[in-house]
Structures are given as C-alpha cells and as structure tokens.
C-alpha cells in the first residue's frame, strides 16, 4: 500500500463568511512527484493545502491520501503521512527549545524515548540545524527558523511534504540553501508558492489556480511559457524564462529551460 499518492476530487469549500475559496478542484499526485501550486493571492492555494491533512474538512468532494480517504477517524493516520510546513515558522515553533520543538511531534506519536532522540537528531542534521538544538526558537534568524520548521515535520517521518510559501521572507542565500535542501528530499512534495523561479527549478509539474479553480495542470516549463494562460491567471513569466535584462539575449531563459527539461 502506497501512502504517497494524493488524490483530490471535486473539492469545494466556502468560508463561513460566504467567501468561496474552492470551486471544484480535482487532481492526482503520485509517488515522488514534486508539484508547484501557483496562483495569485486569494486563488485558494492555502485553503487547498489545509484540506490535504484535514485541518479543513471538505464541504463537497473527497480527499484521499494513498488508500485512505480523509475522514475524522483517519485524521491521525493522515497527519502522520502528510507533513505540513506552515508559511510563518513562528506559528510552528512553540516549544522552549529547538530540540523540544522537533521532539514534539514524535512524542505525540507515542514513540519511545530513544527513537524520539534518534529522529530529532536525524531531522535536525538533515536540515543542518543540529547545533541550534538548545536555542530558543524565537532567537533564530528567518532562515534558521524555516529549517527548524521543516525539521519538526521531517521528524514525524511523513511520506508527503506540503509547504506553504517555503521561500518567503528569506534572503537569497537562505533561499538557495532551502531549495537545495528541498531538492534532496525523496518525499512527494506539494509546494504552494509565488516564487515561480523556485517552482521552475524544483518542480517538474505545476498546478495553476485562479479564483478557486484549476486553470492548468501540466509540466512546469509548458505552463510558464504559456503567456496567455499566465495573463489570464494573474501571473507572469518567471525571471528565469525572460530575456536577460542586461544584454537582452534570451539565453538566461533557454538555460533554465534546458535545465528543467533534461532533469530525469
């Protein structure tokens, strides 16, 4: 049985104040895929993400993770499988020290102490934050907070990583490090982002959302070169696919394109 598949069918959701957020969304993401979820503000990306591990329950439609349909009864199982990295790391890091924060999830899973210790160390080393373990989270830099937030999720041993704007508020170096980190993960990844260049590098597939609907679901390069679609969905070409602003040659674009295209 594979837990790595995410299947959403005809998902609809309207907020209590009457704002429609999702108006019939369907897709299927399979094992090991890395998918970018893009769209302008208010397109419904975050609402969709909150459905994937049951923070919100569908008003209509279905969510399936692997063979398990998302219901109240399967929530614990689903939340173990789907790791969610929130946009603001301050929301995710609430324990007094980094170590305890990363241990929070595994302890809640009821794992024995030595297993918890092993997982915490593994997760923190994976994101390169092991030496931060005794620091209080509110004293970390933005990039460090983000890394630790990812470690808190990794420590739960999820098969699927769901991330909301992982590269927001990071300086260029920290963003680069984050992208290298994410590229090394073998998990199925779903990344909601405005950082289209990151999407171009990390994700072979892109889902475009606009006003609660999916307007396009296809290979990232095809999506980001379809100017009409981007225009109609409130987006624009990523910088990597535009002519070089200094010399006007389209080289920069082609390089990025070939890089994405040749990835296995």
């Amino acid at each position, binding site marked *: 049985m594979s837990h790595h598949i995410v299947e959403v069918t005809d998902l609809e959701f309207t907020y209590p104040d009457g704002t429609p957020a999702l108006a019939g969304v369907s897709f299927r993401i399979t094992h090991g895929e890395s998918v970018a979820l893009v769209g302008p503000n208010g397109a419904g990306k975050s609402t969709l993400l909150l459905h994937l591990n049951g923070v919100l329950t569908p008003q209509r439609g279905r969510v399936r993770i692997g063979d398990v349909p998302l219901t109240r009864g399967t929530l614990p199982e689903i939340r173990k499988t789907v790791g969610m990295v929130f946009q603001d790391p301050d929301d995710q890091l609430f324990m007094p020290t980094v170590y*305890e924060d990363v241990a929070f999830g595994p302890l809640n899973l009821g794992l024995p102490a030595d297993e918890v210790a092993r997982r915490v160390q593994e997760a923190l080393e994976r994101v390169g934050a092991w030496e931060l373990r005794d620091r209080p989270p509110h004293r970390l830099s933005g990039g460090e907070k983000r890394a630790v937030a990812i470690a808190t999720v990794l420590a739960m041993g999820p098969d699927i990583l769901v991330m909301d704007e992982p590269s927001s508020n990071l300086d260029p170096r920290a963003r680069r490090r984050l992208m290298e980190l994410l590229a090394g993960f073998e998990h199925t990844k779903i990344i909601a982002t405005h950082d289209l260049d990151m999407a171009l590098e990390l994700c072979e597939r892109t889902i475009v959302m606009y006003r609660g609907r999916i307007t396009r679901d296809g290979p990232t390069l095809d999506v980001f070169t379809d100017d009409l679609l981007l225009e109609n969905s409130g987006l624009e070409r990523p910088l990597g696919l535009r002519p070089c602003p200094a010399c006007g040659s389209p080289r920069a674009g082609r390089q990025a394109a070939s890089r994405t295209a040749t990835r296995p």
Partner: protein
Amino acid sequence: MGSIEHAFLDLGRLDRLAHADTPIHRLDPRAKILATLVYLVTLVSHGKYEVSALLPYAVYPAVLAAQADLPLGYLARKLLVVAPFAVLVGAANPWLDRTPMLALGPLTVTGGWVSYASILVRFVLTIGAALVLVATTGFHGVCLGLQRLGTPRVMAVQLLLLYRYLFVLADEALRLVRARGLRSFGRRGTGIKVYGSLVGHLLLRTLDRARRIHVAMLCRGFTGEFRTLRSLRFRGRDWAFLVGWSALFLAFRMVNVPRLLGSLFV
C-alpha cells in the same frame, strides 16, 4: 520605543543565564520553587511595621546569586524596572498613618514611613528571589516544576505559551505603534480612539495567530498533553536545599536576628 525593545531583549538574557551550569542550576526546579515559596510566605507574613526582622532574608537571594554566578548589576536593573509599582503602592502610607513610632533626636518617624520602608524592603527581597529563581531555573523549568508539583496542566501550558509568544506579540505591537508613529504628526493620531483600534487590531491578530498555532499543533499530533523529554529527579541534595533553607526562613520568622545580635552586644 527603544525602551520596550530593550526590555524584551533583556528578557532573553534572563533566559541565557538559566542555561549556565552551576550547582544551583542543577538543582531540581521543584526544590527551588518550594524553597522560594516558603521564603515568600514567611517573609510576607511579618507584621506591617517590621523592617529589621526582614533584613536577614536577603541572605537567600544573595547566596544563590553568588553560587549561580548571576550578574548583580543586571538583576538590580531588572528590579528597577518593576520598582515604580512598589514605590507607588506604599507612597500614601506616610500621609495616612501619622502615629509616631520612634524618635531619632529631633526627628519623629511615623508609622507610615516605617510601613513604607517595610514595603520597599519586602519588594526588593521578593522580586529579587523570584528573579533569582527564574535566572537559575529558566522559565520553562519553572513551568515544568509547577506542573510536576500538581499545578493544573492547562495553567502550566498557558504560562509556557505566554512566555514563548511574548516576543512575537511584542514585536507585532511594536510594528503597529511604529506604523502609527510614522503617520501621526505631533499629537494628532495618538488619541484614545486610535489607541483603541490599535489594541483591537492587536487582539484580532493574536486570535488569528492562536488559531494558526493550534492548527500547527494539531498537525503534529497534539492531543492536549504536553509531553516532554526532560525527566526530573528529586535527589538528596534537593532535599537538603529545600529543608535547609526552609528551616532557616522559619527561624528568621520566629527570631528577630538583628535584635538578637543587638542584645548580645549591647
């Protein structure tokens, strides 16, 4: 606004002090909490005109601060931050209570002045002891100890989260105040109405954040119980610390040490 920022950064220093490793730091938090509790109760239970009998109590924070290598200047500054409260609380006493208590030559000291002095001494000693407790145990340690001592879990968790998000909240408040400052000129824009909406805004943001944090906790399997890796062990030296100091405080409560010393020499 620099002062608020500074006050919060300073709080972080209290946190760092708690990370040191001295015999006092290594004591079980429960021993320190209970000893401090006995200290506070005995200290506060003295009569309202008592000053001299309170003085020996200074031994506890002084010895602990010395053994734990706490910087005294820093603790003194922290004391000053809260001082206005104590200074104001007792400020009316000298006017309300004019019974003459003792005469120093031509100067008559009234009961009000004596009780005011007593309040100030108590303030310095109690807050000093509390600061030393936090600086040697850490806020988290205090919460954990309280929980193990039987404080309802909800309270301990609330305290922990309050402390964690104090910084985030202060940051948000600071940004709001700064934004207001940039667009209000002179006294315009700083009135009570604007202040009201500012505070309301802060409340809404806080509620929003609380919801997001709760969601994040649920996503990591939170079921209402804070599990922790730290285990506490109450060892012999913890008992010694608790019993020794408590006995001393009780002795201070029953015997006025300065008067006893005085009567020995005079």
